[in-house]
């Protein structure tokens, strides 16, 4: 237990140092979580409805906030309590990251690339954001959202593939980009068409042309509404810019 403290870099000045949250965040596979403020967890209003998902919420909260030691609980309950604490933490986490404090913490993680980078070649390593496909737990694992291609990706590591998507929620990326519109990327128009001996394959090429047509229509619609789309946030990379960007 004591080496756990060093590993997660918690303060070891007092006897009672293993903060539950720090230990939890240090577990491999939990890198996507940010730490939730104590006050947020203690505020009962924020936990409305969570008692339907897990039982004994008050005890769990005491465990998460280190008000009681899990060791003080009867041995046969400990495992269940620990398990439920993690679920509860996840569920609170989904709510917390929609608040401005939480969004700022997640922004920091986003900037550090803690959620990984888009594997799509044309996205040139754009940072990803975690997203759930359901707000109810036990439906689907966490997925990663790339704002550049607006698509969903599976986490690279199997450890992350078992994290419940509900602990991040379906609204998080949308809220994130509403709050930080400056990090909305400029979308790239680059696509790939398979070639054989330098010649593009016809059916792929045809589909690609049709997709370009759809994009053209979208651009037309946007321009009609008076929205600037060339090389602005949320817009598309223009031809020249594209080549300059590749150079960088």
């Amino acid at each position: 237990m004591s080496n756990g403290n060093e590993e997660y870099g918690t303060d070891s000045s007092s006897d009672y140092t293993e903060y539950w949250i720090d230990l939890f965040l240090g577990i491999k596979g939990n890198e996507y979580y940010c730490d939730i403020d104590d006050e947020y967890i203690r505020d009962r209003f924020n936990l409305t409805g969570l008692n339907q998902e897990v039982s004994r919420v008050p005890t769990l909260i005491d465990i998460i906030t280190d008000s009681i030691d899990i060791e003080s609980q009867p041995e046969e309950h400990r495992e269940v309590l620990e398990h439920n604490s993690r679920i509860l933490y996840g569920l609170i986490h989904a709510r917390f990251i929609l608040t401005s404090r939480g969004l700022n913490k997640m922004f920091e993680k986003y900037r550090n690339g803690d959620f990984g980078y888009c594997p799509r070649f044309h996205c040139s390593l754009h940072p990803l954001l975690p997203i759930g496909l359901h707000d109810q737990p036990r439906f689907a694992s966490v997925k990663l959202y790339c704002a550049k291609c607006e698509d969903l990706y599976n986490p690279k590591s199997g450890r992350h593939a078992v994290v419940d998507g509900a602990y991040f929620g379906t609204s998080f990326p949308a809220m994130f980009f509403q709050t930080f519109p400056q990090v909305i990327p400029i979308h790239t128009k680059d696509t790939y068409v398979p070639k054989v001996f330098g010649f593009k394959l016809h059916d792929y090429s045809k589909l690609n042309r049709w997709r370009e047509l759809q994009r053209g229509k979208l651009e037309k619609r946007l321009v009609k509404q008076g929205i600037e789309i060339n090389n602005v946030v949320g817009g598309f990379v223009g031809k020249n810019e594209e080549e300059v960007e590749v150079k960088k």
Partner: protein
Amino acid sequence: MSSDPEEDYVSWIQTFCESFGHDYFVPVSQDFIEDDFNLTGLSSQVPYYREALYTILDYEVETSEDQPNSVSGAVNSVATTTATTGAASTSATTANATSNGFNDNSRELPNKVLLARSAELLYGLIHSRYIISKPGLTAMATKFERNEFGSCPRYYCDGMHLIPVGATDIPGHETVRLYCPCCNDIYLPSSSRYLNIDGAFFGTTFPGLLVKMFPEIENQCRIRTQRFNSQDFGIKLFGFKINELSSSGPRMKWLRLYPSTEAEKEEYENCELGLPDEFEDLTGSESDMEVGEEEEEEEEEEEEGEDDDRTMASEN
């Protein structure tokens, strides 16, 4: 790993294919390499071509290291050591090469490190030709079937197997990438161990040919796209979709779209040979329009001509 030629003879090709990070390669058959026709033009691309070819085929090769000694005595041992040096040219051989390489006056004999590099390059280039021949395609299809190139990271592709592809056919430009036939896009390999593998060792042609040679791949993709096409993904805020007029709204839907309604299908048929006229000028004039708008970028514009290798795979 030193192998005695008598006991456990491991061919250069096998060593190369089994070494770390080389699991995308298939062993090229000896017959294919021995047929000179298949090697047309490679001699100008690979330094020490003859020696490299002999290394690959496990023939005896003279290197500059054994020049000071009498040639006949050393040849035997050198041939086997060069063969096993393989991909990971160890630091030991590097040291050996630098100490030995300069003091002899051999005209054109390569040292071991250079030779190992040349052999790898030559093997890679032969490999890119081999995998578009019939036996090569079959061998690669087996690897594809076994998911040895990894699965597509995209969620809606549902673990579709990937196919290695190069952005260019000229070695030394780009590393290998992976093509997903389902979303028709290219991805970076998930592990960094593949980041030093040249894309030209697989070539630009391979995935297109594989997909066309084995129609069941396209079938698998069709099933997947049909299953997920109805799921119209877009980020939502508390269950509400973001409008496309918002800058965070959906702007990239076209990238994964398939024609579904009758009108769209007709439109799709009209794209048979090119974009319909009214949109031709839309996409065309756009780039002209921007030239005026981007005067502030002018100092960077002069460089734009040089980077076609990067955009090669991505011309629209």
